[in-house]
């Protein structure tokens, strides 16, 4: 049975990543999936420099009552969805708490400082351990690699939505996704997006209803 209530009101989700990863689109899709069911959804996002290699963050507030601040207060994130690993660390520093859950894509996008050799990108296992220590539940998925196999790396964001739904905690399911994606996209793209969503669900390994 798909969950119909919120574990907390407002329930706070952060989707973070790097410009060009489809962060804003993911937050819109997730927001619409929840709005469709009558929830009051507020999304705050910073995307002025989103295509220029900067960190991008969307804040989603989900409530039965009212609109909340488009900026989540410090330490109040319930779930962090990171399209890029070190962005998860950055977000946890400000918005995390010991009960925060994390869904993290493993594919790094090297900052310019790393490309030019001024800084080192932390080792993958070190990132996993750090995120694990800071949270109550951390899941790591190879969404970008799977999306490349599916034919388009940008579909990584949709895979993350599928994985998020499969993690539980949010009242969302495949039917909600299909309604929203069908309204905004052409039929051929809907098929690819549904495939990406399903792959995301499978990555978490849970049977979704």
């Amino acid at each position: 049975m798909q969950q119909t209530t919120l574990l907390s009101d407002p329930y706070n989700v952060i989707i973070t990543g790097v410009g060009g990863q489809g962060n804003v689109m993911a937050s819109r899709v997730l927001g619409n999936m929840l709005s469709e069911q009558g929830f009051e959804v507020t999304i705050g996002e910073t995307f002025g420099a989103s295509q220029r290699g900067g960190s991008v963050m969307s804040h989603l507030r989900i409530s039965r009552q009212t609109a909340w601040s488009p900026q989540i207060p410090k330490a109040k994130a319930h779930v962090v969805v990171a399209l890029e690993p070190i962005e998860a660390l950055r977000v946890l520093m400000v918005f995390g708490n010991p009960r925060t859950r994390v869904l993290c894509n493993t594919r790094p996008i090297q900052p310019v400082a790393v490309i030019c050799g001024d800084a080192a990108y932390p080792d993958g296992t070190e990132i996993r351990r750090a995120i694990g220590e800071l949270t109550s539940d951390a899941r790591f998925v190879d969404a970008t690699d799977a999306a490349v196999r599916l034919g388009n790396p940008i579909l990584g964001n949709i895979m993350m939505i599928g994985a998020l739904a499969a993690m539980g905690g949010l009242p969302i399911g495949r039917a909600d996704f299909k309604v929203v994606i069908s309204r905004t996209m052409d039929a051929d793209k809907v098929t690819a997006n549904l495939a990406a969503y399903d792959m995301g669900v499978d990555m978490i390994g849970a049977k979704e209803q």
Partner: protein
Amino acid sequence: MSILIEGKSGTRHLLMGNEAIARGALEAGVHVAAGYPGTPSSEIIESLAKVCGPRNLYVEWSVNEKVAMEVAAAASFAGLRSLCVMKQNGVNVASDFLLHLAGSGTRAGMVIVPCDDPGALSSANEGESRHFARLVEIPLLEPGDFQQAKDMIKWAFALSEQIRNPVMVRSVTRLSHASGNVVFGDLPAVDAEAYFKHDGPALDPLQGVMLSYPVALKHRGQQEKLQQAVSLFEQSPFNTYEGPENPELLVITSSACCLYSTEAIHLLGLEERVGLLKLTTTWPLPPQLMENYLARTDKILVVEEVIRFLENEVKVLAAELAPRIGIKTFFGKKDGLLPTVGELNPDLVAGALARIFKMDYEPVAATYAAQAAEMAAKAPGRDLTFCPGCPHRASFWTIHNVLEMDNRQGFVCGDIGCYSLAMLPSGFSTLKTLHAMGSGAGLASGFGKLKAFGMDQPAVAVSGDSTFFHAVLPALVNAVHQQSDITLIVLDNSGTAMTGFQPHPGRPVDAAGNPAPQIDIASVCEAIGARVRTCDPFDLERTERTLLEMLADTPGVKVLVLKQICALSPEKKAKKMFEMRLDESICLGENCGCNRLCTRIFKCPGLNWDAAAGVARIDEVICAGCGVCASICPAGAISKKEVA
């Protein structure tokens, strides 16, 4: 088709603040909308452009904000409701006309929507439009949530028609670029007729001439209109109060700060002790309404962005009302409780409340915060950079190298667009000045006249294609006429790329996507009298040679147009020009002597340095296939193959 016109009255939709503003204008029966692109305002005009056919709308991306306001005013004079949209500093550009418009008055409702950017999330300033409303004496409205963003636009049109003057509705990034649920109202019929009546009695506001003259008479009339607005503000349904009858503290706030303040009061559990007055009619303040709430308590906190505006207005009013309401203690920005720089958020407001109430506010245990900070410190920062395949990286590579070769300490005056990033290392720190739209050419025009004082450094300016038309043209005309010695480089990437590829006069389409006459930048420059050359910036060798020649050429105004479409342009459909390959057996890494030119200096995100293997690599997921790095590698390790 857009949800903005498909959505039926009474239905509820998740809208971006800018879409809510656009829907509000549609519900008000707007017929003309004009603006100049600028984050965070651009989606308002874009949303309206998508529905211009079915809603009988004329929508244009004007050449600049002043012209946009004139276009909107013309519609108002001719009896059509009009909307004018811009980012905060666009109001500076339009303000000369606005001052006179506020004097002449308007006819059909005219609403001006500036979108401010507290915190400068997408700006080179955090200037404010609110001060212009007071400066030119027109009513100022500030919606406090998404529903109000829609509803107050409709109300603003009615207000404008009641007082026959423009009304400003100020938004901010956290409303314009945030999303929330909005319930739709009715859309009116779409028929409309324009006619400019100008031959009635001269001073008749609906039939005479539209002038700010005679000034004293018009100015007095304008102030009477403001008083009329104030009396309507007293009854406005959009100003709301939550909290106890007599709170220990009254919080007065507006705009996105309404949401921050609500959240902060909730975070500290102060609902029974703090009153929250969410003001939406912020200038001029309605005195009776203010007296009613100010009289309820002795302590007042004003929460607003960015510099003091509301706080000062409330203090003046409280001083005038003091004999009736007593002496108040104020908290806010003057006392340093809230910052006067940057945007606010729920935590900053909660921090201020906690200090006033002498409470502890610790969002998370100090041990967790310390541990999280320690781990996040290992995450390297993400400096902004040009996109993979961006023509600007190639352009600035050449500009920077040529100025070094020229060896006269030449410099580049920057301008506003993606290419402003060339002030950073990702653009080889090439820009040495950065101010307003068009200021690069204007400053260069000035520098280029300083030879008489012994200055022989070459003055170079850069401009984007949209910026060229917006404000560079007058500076270029000035440079030619004054016989200044400058080189202007137009970085023409075929669209207003930074804000989402809105068309401009150099493009063959208009805002609605219809064919439009295209004005050629090179021809315009030639007509003015500049010497013009054109290159493809991806052709590094030819661009370098050309720019060197131009700098060494006889004095005068020279223009180099570097034409290459933006890597993200929808016209490119993400198609690669080249398949790039890096031969690891040829790359000599640290032993090459190139000092890792590709990854350390050029540093396109499509290139990676594999420290373990000691070679550069191409990241297939990120590479846009522009081919430029093949020309950079001295060892010839990078090759390109044209994509069929």
